[in-house]
């Protein structure tokens, strides 16, 4: 059994890394949804962030520049979504899906010249003593900067939403845009900024994948993680702290099922992979009942088009 125990440290470290892109993207989408907008384009924004981040890192030789470029590219994609849905009042669900399709194609196009170029990944932290601690050392004190950045984003987003006036206004817009508008808040502007933030976070998630997690560009590198991030927001019932737990759960299950297979433990790997989604479906079913919806704090205006003259 000690062999399995020795695996605990590496599993924890891998789980934190696997959770990182989910955490970036889901936290961004959480803020977007809290403002009352549903952007299903996460996967597309992630891919464009991944390819732009990679391209800039290759050109400049700096992964920091790449990471910033990834965030900017994600925000750029989100701006497109914002113009279509907030200014031209297009249907959010359809536009978000279209944004993902567009992102898949655009990233493949941009990335054509960057396939097969290896780059150095982001160095990992090493603190003598702490990193060498058994079990938790590598997981807590031996990751790269982006993992810590994603973790730091959790309290930051929570603090913004629940402890600042701007966060309160953003939530008000998401709950009842007509009332917020009547009070004189600029609903469209607030939502646009939220959408941009969500895009930047998705872009960072993508850049983490192509610069650090698997340092390369490959078409479709995000492989559905954007959709997982969307599920994660629902799973977490729009609470930043629960997003963290959810990301660890989704990431942890992924890593655990690979280890279970390697150790020859007789559990179907597909069953393990399925569990977090099952939980998400249950949450979705529960919130479709109005009373529960309020209890699970889904933004009341989520996905509804706001027309100031209405």
């Amino acid at each position, binding site marked *: 059994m000690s062999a399995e125990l020795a*695996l605990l440290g*590496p*599993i924890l470290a*891998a789980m934190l890394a*696997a959770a990182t892109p989910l955490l970036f993207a889901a936290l961004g989408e959480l803020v977007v949804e809290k403002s009352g907008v549903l952007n299903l384009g996460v*996967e*597309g924004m992630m891919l464009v962030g991944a390819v732009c981040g990679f391209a800039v890192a290759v050109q400049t030789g700096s992964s920091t520049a790449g990471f910033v470029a990834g965030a900017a590219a994600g925000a750029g994609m989100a701006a497109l979504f914002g113009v279509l849905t907030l200014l031209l009042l297009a249907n959010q669900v359809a536009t978000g*899906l279209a944004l*993902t*399709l567009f*992102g*898949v*194609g655009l990233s*493949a196009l941009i*990335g*054509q010249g960057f*396939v*097969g170029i*290896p780059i150095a*990944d982001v160095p990992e932290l090493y603190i003598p003593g702490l990193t060498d601690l058994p079990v938790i050392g590598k997981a807590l004190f031996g990751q790269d900067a982006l993992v810590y950045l994603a973790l730091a984003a959790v309290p930051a987003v929570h603090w913004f939403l629940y402890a600042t006036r701007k966060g309160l206004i953003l939530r008000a817009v998401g709950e009842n845009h007509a009332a917020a508008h009547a009070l004189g808040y600029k609903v469209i502007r607030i939502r646009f900024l939220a959408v941009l933030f969500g895009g930047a976070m998705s872009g960072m998630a993508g850049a983490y*994948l192509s610069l650090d*997690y*698997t*340092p*390369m560009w*490959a*078409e*479709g*590198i*995000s*492989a559905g*993680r954007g959709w997982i991030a969307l599920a994660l927001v629902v799973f977490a019932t729009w609470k930043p702290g629960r997003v963290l737990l959810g990301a660890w759960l989704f990431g942890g299950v*992924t*890593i655990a099922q*690979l*280890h279970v*297979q*390697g*150790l*020859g433990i*007789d559990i*179907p*790997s*597909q069953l393990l*992979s399925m569990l977090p989604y099952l939980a998400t479906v249950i949450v979705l079913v529960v919130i479709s009942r109005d009373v529960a919806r309020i209890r699970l704090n889904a933004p009341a205006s989520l996905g509804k088009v706001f027309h100031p003259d209405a």
Partner: protein
Amino acid sequence: MGKALMGLATGAAMLALGVGAADAQEKMKVGFVYVGPISDHGYSYQHDQGRLAVEKELGDKVTTTFVENVPEGADAERVIEQLASSGHKLIFTTSFGFMNPTLKVAQRHPDVKFEHATGYKRSANVATYSARFYEARTVIGQIAGKMTKSNIIGYIGSFPIPEVVSGINAFTIAMREVNPKAEVRVVWVNSWYDPGKEAEAAKALIDQGADVISLHTDSPAAIQVAQERGLWVFGQSSDMTRFGPKAHLTAIVDDWREYYVNRVKAALDGSWKSQDTWGGFKDHMLFLAPYNPALPADVVAAAEKTRTDIMEGKRHSFQGPVKDQSGKVVIAEGKQATDEQILKMDWYVEGVQGKVPK
């Protein structure tokens, strides 16, 4: 889903171009349908190398069209139908999942010839072809058995289909022949192409003590992980050296160039007929990427001998006695696995950990 629609969109756009460009000298049109991007530097990339060889060799007689990222399923049928109905006289469909769509379209277009890769259903105008990938796995299994110190070999599998399972078995038989103490641990990622998951699988196997990684998935992610952790790894479908020059021992490289040129020639001179081709080293359908200079000379010499023996028919990847995991002899002493047995393989040989997922 996004990929599917994207693939269709690019496909439709490309076909529109193909249809628009009416050909002055009546060149024969040849179509290619790929499951992945040609930039994958793995499986689809090699099929496209075959197409380029056709262009180079027979460019004065044929024009080629390709559609990449075609999902296996209903979309594939539409793409193949579009190629068939826009004047393509020979169409290569290069993934297992294109089997039924290819046969359906072939029925409607008896005047068009089809070539389907890795499938087992044929008709008057549908031929099939595949490579004996397991032959190369025998060679790399032997290298792995000699290079491992921990006696744990990690194997990243895509889907538990016979092609992959027979590869695992061929690898394990050759590995145990030179190192009976070594075992193979298989992790399935349930995808042909997911760099993140392939990297996670490689890390999980290494964390469990594997010091050599073999893969049957299409991305170079595991090569990078092995490089970072200072271990050994084998590339898949294409030479992946540049993703991990220190770690990359060699790679199994698919080579369709000769086959594609020959089949297009046959279609041109009227000698084409439906047949099944399953070629290995001797048919130039696969070869090994250059060996890592770090490999000891005796390991390279033994690997080369194994490869030439297979080529000359002196050695078979499944030479009896071969036992399954329970120790039961499945392929008797003095016998070799039949093609049928290899094409239906759904059991592990002795030395593989875990069970084949059902």
